[in-house]
């Protein structure tokens, strides 16, 4: 099978290296190294433009123009920012644990870059087709959690520590609904490989399991630490959370990794629920697949931005309640329900009966959930109103 590491270009390149008298295996490893270096460089350049996109998006949401001075549409602005970040003074605040302090942003960025190893860019352009791709995603995410703890602890700052621990408590909690949301595409496609999941989506999974998509969107937002779940950057309480003591390039790495993480998750939303690179003609012209995929990933990225700049932050106890008392039971119920309907409709797989059946059963499930929540909310309201009767007709 073709992949990012074995295609005509890399075969040619390792042939060249072998021609120079190199051991074939070493040539292969060197080629893979160059391929990865190239991919990561492209990703980092993409990341630079994400800074610009983010600033433009937030500006538009807040009725501003955003960067517009340097270059056309302010496109050169991020490069100016990078130069500024590089030549900023290298400050070590009092009492920091220097090794851990420097390691944290590196691990943070690494955990995001590692996700690109399994990123299904197009039918022939992907890193590694791991057969445990979905679990790999979660494993790499736990490295990110680790780097937040490292940053918060090594900074020698109460607020950093508090922010980091709150963020980690939230991240591990929301990992459960996220894992369950990822189990749903696994059930439908019968594989944990991300590429297999994309290939199995003759009909996008958003059509088959819209509730699974919503579940993944909510838990991924919490996992990314973005608003309304951005406890770590609760400016009014914790200033900037785990990266409060970071400045210069180290802060830049945290910032860049957050944006890249968001974009990557936009891509994974596309891969799991919007058919990845699939679209008309993508199988025959892989470059078209790349185009579709990037469009979908950008839409996913914009969706996260839309959520971030629309909703206010939720308090931590409400967030924990939302997760443990609603999302966790809901996600497991949904998982069982999807497994059940999938098995009941197994005879019709591939026909419209299956698709319509899955969609309708999902909508029914969503409606029942909403109805239960509505009754419960009404009960709560009546309880509160019963304690404090509101005088009618007056203030």
């Amino acid at each position, binding site marked *: 099978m073709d992949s990012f590491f074995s295609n005509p270009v890399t075969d040619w390149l390792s042939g060249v290296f072998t021609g120079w008298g190199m051991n074939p295996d070493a040539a292969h490893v060197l080629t893979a190294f160059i391929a990865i270096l190239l991919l990561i*460089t492209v990703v980092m350049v993409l990341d630079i433009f994400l800074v610009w996109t983010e600033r433009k998006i937030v500006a538009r949401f807040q009725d501003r123009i955003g960067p517009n001075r340097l270059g056309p549409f302010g496109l050169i602005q991020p490069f100016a920012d990078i130069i500024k970040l590089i030549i900023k003074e290298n400050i070590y605040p009092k009492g920091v644990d220097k090794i851990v302090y420097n390691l944290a942003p590196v691990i943070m*960025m690494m955990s995001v870059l590692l996700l690109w190893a399994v990123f299904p860019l197009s039918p022939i352009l992907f890193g590694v087709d791991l057969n445990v791709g979905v679990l790999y995603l979660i494993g790499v995410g736990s490295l990110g959690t680790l780097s937040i703890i490292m940053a918060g602890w090594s900074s020698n700052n109460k607020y950093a520590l508090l922010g980091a621990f709150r963020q980690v408590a939230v991240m591990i*909690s929301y990992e459960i609904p996220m894992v369950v949301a990822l189990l749903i595409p696994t*059930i439908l496609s019968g594989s944990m490989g991300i590429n297999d999941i994309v290939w199995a989506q003759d009909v996008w999974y958003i059509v088959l399991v819209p509730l699974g998509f919503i579940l993944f969107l909510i838990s991924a937002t919490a996992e990314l630490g973005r608003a309304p779940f951005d406890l770590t950057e609760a400016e009014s309480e914790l200033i900037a959370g785990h990266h409060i003591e970071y400045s210069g*390039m180290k802060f830049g790495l945290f910032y860049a990794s957050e944006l890249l993480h968001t974009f990557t998750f936009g891509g994974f939303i596309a891969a799991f629920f919007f058919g990845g690179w699939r679209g008309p003609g993508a199988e025959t012209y892989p470059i078209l697949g790349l185009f579709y995929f990037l469009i979908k990933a950008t839409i996913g990225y914009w969706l996260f931005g839309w959520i971030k700049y629309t909703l206010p932050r939720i308090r931590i106890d409400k967030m924990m309640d939302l997760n443990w008392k609603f999302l966790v039971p809901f996600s497991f119920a949904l998982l069982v329900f999807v497994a*059940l309907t999938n098995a009941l409709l197994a005879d019709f797989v591939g026909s419209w009966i299956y698709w319509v059946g899955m969609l309708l059963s999902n909508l029914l499930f969503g409606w029942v959930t909403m109805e239960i929540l509505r009754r419960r909310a009404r009960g709560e309201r009546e309880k509160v109103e019963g304690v404090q009767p509101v005088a009618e007709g007056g203030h």
Partner: protein
Amino acid sequence: MQTEWMYIGLFLVVGALIPAAAIIVAAILSPRKPNPIKESTYECGIETVGENWVQFKAQYYIFALIFLVFDVETVFLFPWAVSLNQLGMFAVVEGIIFIGILMAGLVYAWRKGMLEWV
């Protein structure tokens, strides 16, 4: 398989090298003029009181414990999800029993008030 993991290993190395290079380049290019005020802990201009070691409440630990149980559970659920299409209804019932038993644990924790963030 092994070659795939070799690529992942290479990715890990390069993925760590590039951010590390960014930090090193910044450290070489940037000036360094430390003074005590600049290096003091940032608390919005207020002097730091006491140690930075905050005593955390038991809630963090409890949630981590409950999370651990569910994390291990998902380890079992992934193979289950993969083989669901081949085994059909039998596997579905199996999964329902598996998840049902664990939900009993969640309900127990809920009733004992362990899911409250106070």
